[in-house]
């Protein structure tokens, strides 16, 4: 008599096998580079999905994801309600529905190039190192390749992922290239209803003197899994400036790898995680300083209610050559309920001797004196709490210079609060 393996490792193995089987069944019809795809299939078959024994996954267990079932996507139409949740901003729209490019909902770029219809793999992703990236590479079906020519301002692009909640799994693969001196503001909005898997990979090549502003809103369905990986490589004098508003999903992991490859390159990885009920969200950053005079800034704010759990892992690596590195990392959490939990793991690996690196983490509740001060002026308690929560977020939100994006995020935060973010149990 044989005993079937059980437990988290068996569930992860079974899920990886199921994804590989899906690939085997459909591989002749999947678009794009079949060689890259086959390599990742072999990696996934050999390495499986991230498990609880890996240090980088200590605080985020993928078992609930492994136990769910996802179908391949089909062409779908988003509801009017879903479309209405897109920010009302002047932008070139690139809309994906259940992971597939939807041309009727999208606009035509002017002055820069966009290609869709197959995965935009690029060369920055590391499927051998990041298992979810191997999964993405193996099953990716669509994505946007955005190419901004030198010294061109592409303005604002709204890259929207709408999920209809049809229990599908999709793995978009986007690649964004900014040639020297180019500029782009990318509003990266991922929203949806219900249950599904959204496992996107975005890669950014930021050439010398180029600036990309990556403003993300993750507001997925209540039963959704959002597992995203971003790679940004920044050349001399270039900037990867990002902010992520994280509101959604049942289980979310947003991993960002930023490499400052040339002198005076900069990266900002700011975020606000607002979680409630039994949501779990993990914001993990790896910033590598590989050249002198590079700067990185991370201000990550967490507001946790209900039984939610927030995770922040921030790693700063400073190579020996990266003298005069300026690294700053601050992670703060506001716990609005006794059952919420924040796990914070800063890591500094510094091999240069002339650097300025600082990090800090705080966890606390709303300040009773501040709450009383507001109430003593006639502000009702719920409104006073909302004001203090918004004030807590301001350090991360205020640097967002794109007015329209910031207004949309403010509205999303207000809606989050109104719909139950203030629930304290």
């Amino acid at each position: 008599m044989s005993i079937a393996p059980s437990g988290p490792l068996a569930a992860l193995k079974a899920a990886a096998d199921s994804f590989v089987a899906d690939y085997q069944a459909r591989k002749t019809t999947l678009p794009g580079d079949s060689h890259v795809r086959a390599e990742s299939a072999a990696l996934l078959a050999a390495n499986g999905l991230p498990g609880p024994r890996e240090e980088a996954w200590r605080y985020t267990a993928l078992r609930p994801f492994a136990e769910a079932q996802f179908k391949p996507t089909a062409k779908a139409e988003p509801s009017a309600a879903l479309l209405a949740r897109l920010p009302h901003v002047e932008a070139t729209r690139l809309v994906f529905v259940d992971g597939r490019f939807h041309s009727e909902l999208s606009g035509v770029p002017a002055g820069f190039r966009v290609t869709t219809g197959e995965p935009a793999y690029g060369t920055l992703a590391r499927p051998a190192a990041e298992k979810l990236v191997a999964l993405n590479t193996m099953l990716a079906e669509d994505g946007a390749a955005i190419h901004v020519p030198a010294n061109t301002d592409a303005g604002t692009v709204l890259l929207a992922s709408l999920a209809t909640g049809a229990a599908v799994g999709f793995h978009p693969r986007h690649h964004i290239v900014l040639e020297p001196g180019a500029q782009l503001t990318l509003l990266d909005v991922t929203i949806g209803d219900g249950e599904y898997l959204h496992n996107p990979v975005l890669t950014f090549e930021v050439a010398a003197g180029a600036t990309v502003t990556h403003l993300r809103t993750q507001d997925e369905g209540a039963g959704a899994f959002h597992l995203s990986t971003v790679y940004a490589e920044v050349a001399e004098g270039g900037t990867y400036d990002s902010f992520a508003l994280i509101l959604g999903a049942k289980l979310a992991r947003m991993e960002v790898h930023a490499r400052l490859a040339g002198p005076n390159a900069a990266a900002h990885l700011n975020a606000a995680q607002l979680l409630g009920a039994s949501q779990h969200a993990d914001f993990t950053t790896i910033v590598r300083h590989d050249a002198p005079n590079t700067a990185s800034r991370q201000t990550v704010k967490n507001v946790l209610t209900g039984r939610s759990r927030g995770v922040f892992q921030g790693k700063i690596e400073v190579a020996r050559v990266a003298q005069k590195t300026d690294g700053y990392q601050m992670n703060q959490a506001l716990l609005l309920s006794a059952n919420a939990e924040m796990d914070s793991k800063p890591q500094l690996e510094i091999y240069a001797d002339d650097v300025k690196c600082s990090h800090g983490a705080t966890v606390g509740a709303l300040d009773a004196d501040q709450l009383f001060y507001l109430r003593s002026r006639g502000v009702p308690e719920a409104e006073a709490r909302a004001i203090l929560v918004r004030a807590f977020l301001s350090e991360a939100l205020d640097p967002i210079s794109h007015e329209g994006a910031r207004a949309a995020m403010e509205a999303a935060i207000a809606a989050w609060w109104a719909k139950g973010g203030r629930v304290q149990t």
Partner: protein
Amino acid sequence: MLQINGLKASIDGKSILNGIDLTVPQGEVHAIMGPNGSGKSTLSYVLSGREGYEVDGGTANFDGQDILAMEPEERAAAGLFLAFQYPVELPGVNNANFLRTALNAQRRARGEAELDAVQFLKLARAEAKRLSMPDDMLKRNVNVGFSGGEKKRNEVLQMALLRPKLAILDETDSGLDIDALKIVADGVNALRGPTFSALVITHYQRLLDHIVPDRVHILAQGRIVKSGGPELAHALEAGGYAAFIPEAA
């Protein structure tokens, strides 16, 4: 306007107020003077509804309502204002937005129309000017980076905008130089009239040279031990508190 009878209160099981009897009629300004630890701040916090204070007995009636049963914001909307001894800093909260939110919350609670941003700013700028406050104090975060004098002026600005029926000024004079003290006193005096009452809590007689009270009460060991006219403050200044404090048993 305010009628307190036999008010007893404690914090963490320690009795602080031991039966306060005090009446402040409408339109009058009363001063409460007392040494450190006499219960001055506790009285102001109990009346404004701060958490952590246990009312063990007695009543407090404000404008016909039992205020001890009300939430802090309800007390404010009913017309009670506390000028804090240590105004609280609110990083990330713009002062003008804060003031407008407070004013409109009270107006809403009273069924009055809210002020829009333009109406409000006009009003706030005029009041700020009267208090010699630079315009930029409205643009800054609430009390963040304010000097002691600026914080107190900001309290008086809030009072001027909110137009309370009764203001409790908790050691508003502490940490003020003489010029700031005059500005603050002028701000309070400007509100005096038949519909404004105040309870001025202070350690020193100095403030009462500028805000001349109708009555002075001496608080010691959680009780009012002596009441009189403005001359009582001068007697205190000359003789100190010792003459008014009952000997410890």
